[in-house]
């Protein structure tokens, strides 16, 4: 037996590819939901909304301060207990067994992404000069209109590179979703590897797939950035 059975790796490559849509859907859904929640939470912190601001601080601290695996377990074992309690108290008949593991993954990863995007958006909003908002007010826009039409579009320019960081981290952390029985790239690799102890081969396959996904994401973010930063004239280029 050779150390590295390349035939085996190539043979099982397509099987591992079946996990790609699942990994991508977890990451995509959670970055979208997380961004929306994160934007709202960032606004509560920028505008210092009395009660919500403190709540946001505790939430962000908790999510960033505890391991993702712990959060997954808490939800996976906590939600059925909660449903049990709700069923007993309100005599409803919700069955926790009907909840697909994907929903737990969506929930936890969205919450996780929300905490990180909160900080990203807060930094981005803070980077925009107060004069922009004053200009909006002076032409009769409401604060919300000013935010939507003037502040947000400028904000994304600073947010995008950081969103790239978070998105790539999110892709890599989806490998933990096996803990709540979601069968994604890493899980499939492990299961195939277990049958014949071909761990090195299958981990290599997983590494290549993850790298390709991340490379494509980097390209995507690169083009997005180019698009968002269109209006800028690069002084650095002029100086050269």
């Amino acid at each position: 037996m050779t150390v590295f059975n390349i035939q085996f790796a190539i043979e099982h490559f397509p099987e591992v590819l079946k996990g790609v849509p699942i990994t991508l859907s977890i990451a995509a859904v959670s970055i979208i939901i997380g961004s929306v929640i994160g934007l709202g939470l960032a606004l509560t912190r920028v505008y210092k909304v009395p009660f919500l601001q403190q709540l946001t601080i505790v939430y962000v601290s908790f999510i960033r301060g505890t391991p993702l695996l712990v959060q997954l377990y808490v939800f996976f074992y906590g939600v059925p207990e909660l449903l049990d309690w709700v069923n007993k108290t309100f005599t409803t008949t919700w069955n926790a067994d009907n909840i697909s593991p994907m929903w737990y993954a969506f929930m936890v990863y969205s919450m996780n992404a929300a905490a990180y995007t909160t900080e990203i958006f807060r930094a981005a909003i803070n980077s925009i000069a107060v004069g922009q908002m004053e200009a909006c007010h002076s032409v009769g826009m409401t604060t919300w209109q000013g935010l939507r039409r003037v502040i947000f579009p400028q904000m994304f320019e600073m947010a995008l590179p950081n969103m790239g960081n978070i998105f790539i981290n999110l892709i890599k952390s989806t490998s933990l979703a096996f803990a709540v029985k979601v069968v994604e790239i890493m899980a499939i690799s492990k299961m195939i590897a277990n049958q014949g102890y071909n761990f090195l081969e299958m981990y290599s396959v997983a590494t290549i797939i993850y790298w390709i996904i991340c490379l494509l994401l980097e390209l995507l973010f690169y083009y997005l950035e180019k698009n968002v930063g269109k209006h800028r004239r690069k002084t650095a280029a002029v100086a050269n």
Partner: protein
Amino acid sequence: MDSSIHEWGTLFQQVLSRLPLTLLMLVASLMVGLFLGTLIAVIRIRKIPVLHQLMAIFISFSRCTPLLVQLFLIYFGLPQLLSAFGIYINDVAPLIFAIATFSLHISAYLAEVIRSAYIAVGEDQLEACYSVGMTYSQALRRVILPQAFVLALPNMGNTIIELLKDTVLAFTIGVVDIMGQVRIIIGNNYGLGMFQVYVVISIVYWGTCAFIEVIIHQLEKHFKKGRINVAKS
């Protein structure tokens, strides 16, 4: 194993005795990472011909491969590579290898963070610097970077906290940090009392994270220096 107060106390003591090592790894790699990250960010913004492409590849590699792989590459690969050139570094402490890996890893993330902050400062500031006759490096040092670092603080908080959680991997190359201590305690108890130990380490990590958050918040407040944001606060 009963859960008396005394035992919780000893557990905390045992785990906390290793906290300085974790903090050392964090701070040391942060310092190096911050320096390298700023350098890479400037290289990428100025689009310096060959370095610019090299740095893009470096960032891609650092962010797209697992940290564990990078750690093994440096810990096992680097001594072999250097011994081919007649340099012998096998007796260097694992801690140094860990710090080196974490520095390189975080510099890629920080480069992106600082680059975004640099762009947010805006080119009019640079033009103003040129108009009063500053050179580029003067403008960078006196005007652009001080502003960029303040804008980057919340995102740096994200990255630093991720790094803190990543330092658990150092135990795989034999650095006994707080996670290593926990594994040793569990090993000594033959796997008993796992729940208590993990509760203790969660609290220690959360405490450290909260501490970092407080520091970042204070820095933000201190360096704002009258700059008002969109909400006029």
